[in-house]
């Protein structure tokens, strides 16, 4: 009996030592890698260069969403379940950036408040491909595939442009961005809402 107890004690000690040695190899931080890469705050104010950056895109989208959501026409659009769409915002600056970053965020934030919107441009090809696949490929059960000719058109369209003025001296660079967004009734072409956001960024060299 005593021999059995001492055997069990020995096994427990060995298991304990093994567990300790294994845990000594690990840290409590759930990370992997060399430590040269780290995650930052996506909402932080980014001032790396004067180029249009994440903070600018976020501020523009936020301002436009806030402005749109308090517009009676948009509140009416939500109540009547009418449709909105966003045309590509024109980039008139000398920099390259994807203006869909702005419109996609605005549409996502508006949709959280009940706005319905339709796809356009880049997304349209995938939509048409899928409609054709279901209707013309002969692969699908007719009773369980979607019908052609049922797509809905938007009543209003968001459109706009981003422009910039750049001034440089030997030791300073000043960039002024102006973003103009408009809500247009598609049938009539009437601009029902407009708002602007200005941003000034200055860098010393």
């Amino acid at each position, binding site marked *: 009996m005593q021999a059995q107890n001492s055997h069990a004690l020995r096994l427990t000690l060995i298991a304990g030592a093994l567990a300790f040695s294994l845990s000594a190899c690990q840290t409590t931080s759930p990370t992997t890698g060399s430590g040269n890469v780290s995650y930052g705050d996506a*909402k932080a104010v980014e001032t790396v260069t004067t180029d249009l950056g994440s*903070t600018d895109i976020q501020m523009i989208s936020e301002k436009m969403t806030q402005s749109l959501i308090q517009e009676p026409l948009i509140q009416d659009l939500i109540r009547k379940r009418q449709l909105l769409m966003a045309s590509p915002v024109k980039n008139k600056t000398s920099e390259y950036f994807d203006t869909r970053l702005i419109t996609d965020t605005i549409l996502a934030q508006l949709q*959280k408040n009940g706005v319905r919107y339709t796809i356009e441009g880049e997304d349209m090809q995938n939509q048409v491909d899928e409609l054709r696949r279901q209707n013309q490929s002969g692969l699908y059960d007719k009773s369980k595939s979607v019908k052609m000719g049922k797509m809905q058109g938007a009543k209003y369209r968001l459109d706009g442009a981003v422009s910039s003025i750049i001034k440089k001296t030997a030791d300073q660079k000043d960039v002024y961005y102006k973003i103009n967004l408009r809500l247009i009734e598609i049938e009539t072409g009437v601009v029902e809402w407009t708002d602007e956001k200005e941003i000034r960024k200055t860098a010393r060299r």
Partner: protein
Amino acid sequence: MSRRFLIPLGLAAAVFAVSVQAQTPPEAASQPAGPTIASKIEEQGQMRYLRVTDLRAVKRDNLLRIQAEITNTSNGNQQLYYRFKWLDRDGFSVWDDEPWKPLLVYGAQKQFINVVAPTFKATDFRLVLQSPDNSGNN
């Protein structure tokens, strides 16, 4: 857009929610105390030169509108970073984290921050403030 709001603006105060002042007027002492500015502000550290001297909130068209007055007590320009947290009546967050926004407040000047809640669900808020000159940064 502003013309569309003339009537709602006229009816404004009727709808609403919170109005907070820096100092309670003496005659209001017997009335039930409203929320204080401090209860709506989250400062990251103690701001040395910037003060929230007025804070108003009103609900119009089901959207919470906030106006905060920031006063710069120094003679130099001060940089401020701010963002709002949007909450429902139970204190739950109803919107994603907002981006931090930079605001330059000129020396010895007051500046308004005017915002509208990004969602109809927001009934309460917190204004989070951070200034590079906050004591907490030292």
